[in-house]
């Protein structure tokens, strides 16, 4: 057997691939589910915080800024570990899925708030003044005039950040979630063959390559006029 054959036999072993493909596909759907839950919760919570912050209540804003800074500074895996391995000490047990979901949602929330806030403050003051001078109230001005402009501005950075954080779903394998990476690693240790890892990598490419390319497109489509 030549080296090349041995390489193929290790990484592209048809028998092993056939055996573990179903597990990887299950993991694929689990990854998508986890990612969807994270995006929903994270973006919604982040937007809500940004709106709250625009009310300009000082104490509330300090609290928001602290929470946002906290989840931008902590590595996601540390948050997952704290929730999964730490919380039981407080008598609260989370499943691996719940811990990963909560941790990554909090991280996405923090980045989303930061991005939206930057977008809201980047809308010129004159927009507020023009709207208010026609008699529009704070809420109408915010939702009908300012927010739509902010949203347009934040789409590229938000898309990229969401993609980056969604890839963090792989971290859930550390807390025994059988998403793609978890399933692949289990496959490797049962079969003593790295083919399941190859399958896993392919699964991630199938999932994220289109998303990354979409992110590229969004960046040019919504390019800022300088």
């Amino acid at each position, binding site marked *: 057997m030549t080296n090349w054959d041995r390489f193929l036999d290790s990484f592209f072993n048809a028998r092993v691939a056939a055996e573990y493909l179903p597990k990887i596909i299950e993991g694929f759907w689990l990854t998508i589910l986890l990612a969807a839950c994270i995006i929903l919760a994270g973006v919604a919570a982040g937007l809500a915080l940004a709106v709250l912050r625009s009310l300009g209540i000082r104490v509330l804003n300090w609290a928001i800024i602290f929470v946002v800074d906290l989840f931008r500074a902590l590595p996601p895996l540390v948050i997952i570990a704290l929730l999964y391995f730490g919380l039981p000490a407080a008598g609260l047990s989370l499943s691996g899925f719940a811990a990963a979901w909560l941790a990554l949602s909090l991280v996405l929330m923090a980045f989303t708030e930061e991005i939206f806030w930057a977008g809201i403050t980047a809308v010129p003051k*004159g*927009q507020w*003044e023009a709207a*208010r*001078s*026609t*008699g*529009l109230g704070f809420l109408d001005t915010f939702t009908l005039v300012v927010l739509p402009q902010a949203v347009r501005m934040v789409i590229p950075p938000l898309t990229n950040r969401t993609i980056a954080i969604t890839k963090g779903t792989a971290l859930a394998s550390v807390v025994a979630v059988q998403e793609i990476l978890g399933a692949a690693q289990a496959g490797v240790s049962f079969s003593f063959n790295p083919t399941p890892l190859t399958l896993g990598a392919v699964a991630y490419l199938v999932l994220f390559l289109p998303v990354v390319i979409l992110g590229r497109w969004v960046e040019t489509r919504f390019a800022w006029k300088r």
Partner: protein
Amino acid sequence: MSAAIVEARGVHKHFGGLHVLKGVDLAVRERELVFVIGPSGSGKSTLLRCLNRLEEPSDGSITVDGIDMLDRRTDINKARQRIGMVFQSFNLYPHMTALGNVALALRRVQGLPRAEAEARARQALERVHLADRAGHYPGQLSGGQQQRVAIARAIALEPRVMLFDEPTSALDPELVGGVLQAMRELRESGMTMVVVSHEMGFARAAADRVVFMDGGRIVEEGPPEAIFGNPQQERTRAFIGQIERH
């Protein structure tokens, strides 16, 4: 002589330690066009913005169309419909068409149904000769057209008085004419107007009264011929001389 529709008395404004308005009295009669001139930083914009309470005066009283603008109980959003404002930088909403810009307050503040709001918005655009640009976004319009849409946005609410803060200063020279034309027509329709501008030709032709401000005070006021032809105060003379030399 008709009664004053805008009446500001003893208006002061501080920005932190900066005393920007130092007791300004200004009364504008119905159908009058008052022109406000003065050096940069003299407080012209601040005065205008106090009139519709975009800035909160530190002291004094302001009534517009019989409404006490500084009373806490006044519904400021309702009051502001009666005071149209046009800004130097247009401030059109870039994500809405010309029609959308004009119709927004009609729908949300006056509560008109969509069709009616749009019909009224179209009429307002016609008055500034831009009916054919209703579906354009601000980015697709020239500066002069944008400013006329901004005027339409204000007049659509049928205000009792219009405030203009340097409406032509951000425009290329060849676009100024269209905006001044729209303002002239507005005046002929009997609108009460307060205009801050450097367009002295327009002031001579259209203003009933010119007010010269300096250092947060009204230094001198009178009919255009008097202010431009025979100013009484030294500071006014210096300022007029400076402009005429340009």
